[in-house]
């Protein structure tokens, strides 16, 4: 398995959020500051890698009839671990992500990768797949966060660079709407449209190069 190809797939051509359209609840709900986005993205990355590895290890043991139930239990176990660790060491993050941490259990990305990839491939390939898909998810979240935080709050890097972020747009001007639910839908819609345009453009370029 080619790492570079998998990375490209995870980040762009098979991006879990922008192309496969999985796990949209959390993508829209928590992307209001860079801190939230990074925290959520990295927790999903960790859970995805762990569950992919375990499911890949057990792929010959789990009977195919009850595999979905078994996957859910494995994933729920890892989610609980991350949830408890976060409550202990990063209480602020745990507070602001709230119910969306336990809800990673029903995030279709993780179950989707378990079913589509980890149950058919070796442990190493599954781990790599977890990393690349997790990075793709994190990248999409971070982009959403940066756009929404900048337009809605007028700041950059809230919680990461400084407590309230670096102010770029002066106080009265940002459109509060962008950090409200409306902004989530609008930003994700535009982002998906942009990624479709980009993928099409890259495809055309490759075809042209191949024709020459």
């Amino acid at each position: 398995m080619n790492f570079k190809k998998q990375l490209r797939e995870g980040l762009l051509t098979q991006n879990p959020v922008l192309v496969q359209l999985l796990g949209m609840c959390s993508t829209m709900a928590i992307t209001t500051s860079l801190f939230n986005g990074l925290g959520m993205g990295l927790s999903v990355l960790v859970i995805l890698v762990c569950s992919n590895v375990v499911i890949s290890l057990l792929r010959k043991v789990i009977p195919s009839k009850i595999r979905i139930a078994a996957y859910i239990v494995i994933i729920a176990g890892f989610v609980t671990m991350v949830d408890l660790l976060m409550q202990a060491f990063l209480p602020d993050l745990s507070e602001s992500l709230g119910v969306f941490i336990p809800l990673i259990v029903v995030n279709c990305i993780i179950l989707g990768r378990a079913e589509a990839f980890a149950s058919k491939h070796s442990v190493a390939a599954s781990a790599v797949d977890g990393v690349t898909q997790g990075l793709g998810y994190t990248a999409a979240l971070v982009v959403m966060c940066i756009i929404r935080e900048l337009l809605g709050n007028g700041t950059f890097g809230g919680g990461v660079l400084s407590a309230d972020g670096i102010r770029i747009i002066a106080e009265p001007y940002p459109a509060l709407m962008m950090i409200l639910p409306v902004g989530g839908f609008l930003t994700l819609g535009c982002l998906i449209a942009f990624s479709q345009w980009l993928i099409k453009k890259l495809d055309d370029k490759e075809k042209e190069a191949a024709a020459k």
Partner: protein
Amino acid sequence: MSVTKLFSIALGAILVNNFILVQFLGICPFMGVSKKMDTALGMGVAVIFVMGIASAATWLINEYLLVRLGLQYMQTVAFILVIAALVQLVEMFLQKAVPALYQALGIYLPLITTNCAVLGVALLNVQNSYNFIESVVYGVTGGIGFLVAICLFASVRERVDNCECPKSFEGFPIALISAGLLALAFMGFSGLRVF
């Protein structure tokens, strides 16, 4: 517990804190099965049904099993298993007992297990420390909120499909943008309170 409190929970779940448009729970089925009005209606009814039963079951499990044994940290695992088993049971029961309803809801039921709104309502019931009746009311009205949102969205989407829009926006992105406008409309309900 007063009727006013139940009414304010219901109003909150349907309009002010709509599960889909304000809390972002259950977006996947919301986007996935909203292409036609009748499928949207079927999904909405199935969600009301499951959310009501799941709220009741998870409340009982939490109160009499997890809290008694001091196992609250197993909440996520226990709830998702209960919901998965419950959906399966409901499906089998309907198939035998009410075949007509099963025919109507059949294909939507398995999808509901991975609907974040169902697990979400169970977790929120615990977080808000609702009692049994409040939990069930919150579950059912949350489902009604889902039905309202998905039906409104399906009828918008049927029309959007017939319109011309930029190539890159075709299909999913334009649907998200229309959902955004719907969410904007629902913002009008924020601040609505029962005293």
